């Protein structure tokens, strides 16, 4: 236990984090490429749009964060808001 506290851990080293991120970006690119090569049985014509899921997922997540950040300005209250 005490040894762990002194020694920097796997996730404490920036080079490990950057290696992991590279792996994830690689997986990400591979999946988009696979989308062009693997023939999928699709349900919806929108799924024919190249890299539909990648683009939609990206736009969705970016929008989610931007909107949520704007909402924070309106919604955020002090911890003791109701006690005042």
């Amino acid at each position: 236990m005490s040894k762990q506290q002194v020694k920097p851990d796997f996730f404490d080293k920036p080079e490990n984090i950057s290696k992991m991120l590279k792996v994830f970006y690689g997986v990400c690119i591979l999946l988009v490429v696979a989308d062009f090569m693997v023939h999928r049985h699709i349900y919806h014509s929108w799924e024919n749009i190249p890299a539909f899921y990648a683009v939609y997922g990206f736009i969705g997540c970016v929008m989610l964060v931007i909107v949520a950040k704007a909402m924070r300005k309106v919604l955020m209250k002090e911890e003791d808001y109701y006690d005042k």
Partner: protein
Amino acid sequence: MISSLPMLPPFLPLLIGCIAALVLRGHLRSAIMLLAPIWGGLQLAGLEPGIYWSMDFMGYQLEPVRVDKLSIMFGYLFHLAAFIAVVYALHVKDTLQHVAGLSYAASALGAVFAGDLLTLFVFWEMLALTSVFLIWARRTDRAYSAGMRYLIMKVLSGVLLLAGAIIFIKHTGSARFTEIGLEHDGALSLGAWLIFLAFGIKCAFPFLHNWLTDSYPEATPTGTIFLASFTTKVAVYALARGFPGTELLVWIGVTMACFPIFFAVIENDLRRVLAYSLINQVGFMVVGIGIGTSLALNGAVAHAFNDVIFKGLLMMSMGAVLHMTGRINGSELGGLYKSMPKTTILCIVGAASISAFPLFSGFVSKSMIMSAAVAQGYDVVWLLLLFAAAGVFHHAGIKIPYFAFFAHDSGIRTTEPPHNMLLAMAIAAGLCIAIGAFPAHTVYALLPWEATYQPYDITHVLTQLRPTETMMAWVAVLLTGILLLYYI
């Protein structure tokens, strides 16, 4: 041996467990509390569909115990949830919490096996009256106030249900709880709408949902596990029974799936993040009920089953963090993987399941609901559910494990939670993987409506794996692997 025992109402074994918790102490109490859900679950296995008990009440036929495939499925789920929650709470020495937890679980069972509206009302109210003590048991001013607000909403739901039921019974001449629907005229329409609204409050429909995000995070670490398992799932059951194929539910459900994710992204209390996420997952189920095809309905109840387990697992992991550190705000936590590696891994299994990662339990049921939406021409709904699924991944899949266990090191050094808490999480995690890997032999063998579905074709795998999600899901898988290497 079991079949030779007299047939008991399904809620009775847990009620006996509750009485044992009240009068017994020590290991004997623990043993009986653990045996009660096992006994109840085994008894269910011997039940044939049918009406087991009926009586006359003011000229109407009451059927307090009705067994069919839908009620049996929820029956198994609630016994499983009760067992996991009891294991998780074994270290607690507070009699109030044990009694409240088991009587609450027993009420949920009574509600799903109720064959008529009046019996349903009785258990509906008992759900409220028993569960509020799990909030008050935190014994803080905040919990007391949140519990009062919770109780007011729940009693309102009960009053609406009773009023609606009386109108409905008087005009139809039957008390039986079966399909109600909203397509009626005159007073009958009013009755149906009142019942719909009563179910809607418990189901946390938009604008009727505040009780949930207000009170669940104020309950005790162990109490929240019970709370997250029963009330909303009883409401999902009631909607599936009373209002299948009601189109309004599709739009209510899709709103429920989408709006909480914005709040979950900015919320700091990690158990409150999960409370928002609970509404979001119930939204998927409500959409399935609204679509009303057998694929959609099966998807809805299967997702209810899975959600109790993976949301329970996530809540348990955050409960363990709160129990060990006394803190639950994301901004005050971080780096806990160093001192709670097992809890970290178990939390990541829950995160992968709620994110519908292949081979984990959320994958199949979420795909069923989304396929059903496309099949019925709900294009916009499908697109919004896709967005909601990405949002779940963002706040429940990534935010929860990241802020609690990784992020910046908060300097908190603690230990793993008590063994019983770890065991309860391990059982839930094992179930998430077992259901995800062998869907046809587990939850999907219990589905109430006739349908065939092949979950693992290539479309579903690639569809559910949107690249942004994949990247993040791989984080989860890799972290699990790395942690396993380091600590086990």
